[in-house]
């Protein structure tokens, strides 16, 4: 997981790159691989949810997201939690610059 969080004036811009093959059932049957895609992503700052996404297998492989929110300060930590279709979770952290 790669996270970049940059504060500009009062808005924080986050760029997020996750790692997942994002294989849905049709693609899995075709390529004879297991279904595996991220189903939910949550971004928190100071324990508060600032952005979240419920995701399906039609996002590109290794999904990329960019999002913006207000209310954070430089030095705050952003925490990203993901869970995939197999129940595997991952957590990433970055300091807002």
């Amino acid at each position, binding site marked *: 997981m790669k996270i970049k969080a940059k504060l500009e004036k009062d808005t924080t811009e986050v760029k997020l790159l996750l790692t997942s093959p994002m294989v849905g059932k049709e693609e899995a049957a075709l390529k004879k691989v297991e279904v595996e895609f991220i189903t939910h992503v949550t971004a928190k700052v100071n324990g508060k949810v600032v952005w979240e996404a*419920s995701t399906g297998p*039609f996002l*590109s*492989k290794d*999904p990329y997201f960019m*999002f913006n929110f*207000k209310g954070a300060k430089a030095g705050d930590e952003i925490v990203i939690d993901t869970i995939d279709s197999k129940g595997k979770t991952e957590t990433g952290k970055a300091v807002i610059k």
Partner: protein
Amino acid sequence: MKRRKFLSLGAVVAAASVLPASLSATDFVVTAPKAWEAATSKEAIEALFGSAAMIDGQIEIKAPKLAENGGAVPIGIKSKLELTTIALFQDANPRSAVVVFEMPENGVVDLQTKIKMRKTANVTVVAKGKDGKLYSAVQKVEVSIGGCGG
């Protein structure tokens, strides 16, 4: 006795402090499974948002007119409105729903992601505003090489 009372109080406080975080997180894959199985954008939108009237022209979809790689088509969503739920649909894949974004508060509607599209199709964004109204936008994206593998 006092200590026991104190401890049980602590457990209640801990439970209460955990609860709001789990309440604010809506996993639409769990809460609206029908929407993720729907083949067309229309069915998926109805499963997620119902069939209320939608307002056009307030959301901007930034997508290439011609995408060369259907495996990763960049889609941007911009709006000046305060939107709490933003869902992205397309008609190029076996099922329509791609992603549902949520921004509880302090959100700025300036999002980007990359999606798979195995053929030329319409991309639809439907969003719910803080005012409770529904907004939508549609844009056609031409794909020269499909990337879904399907």
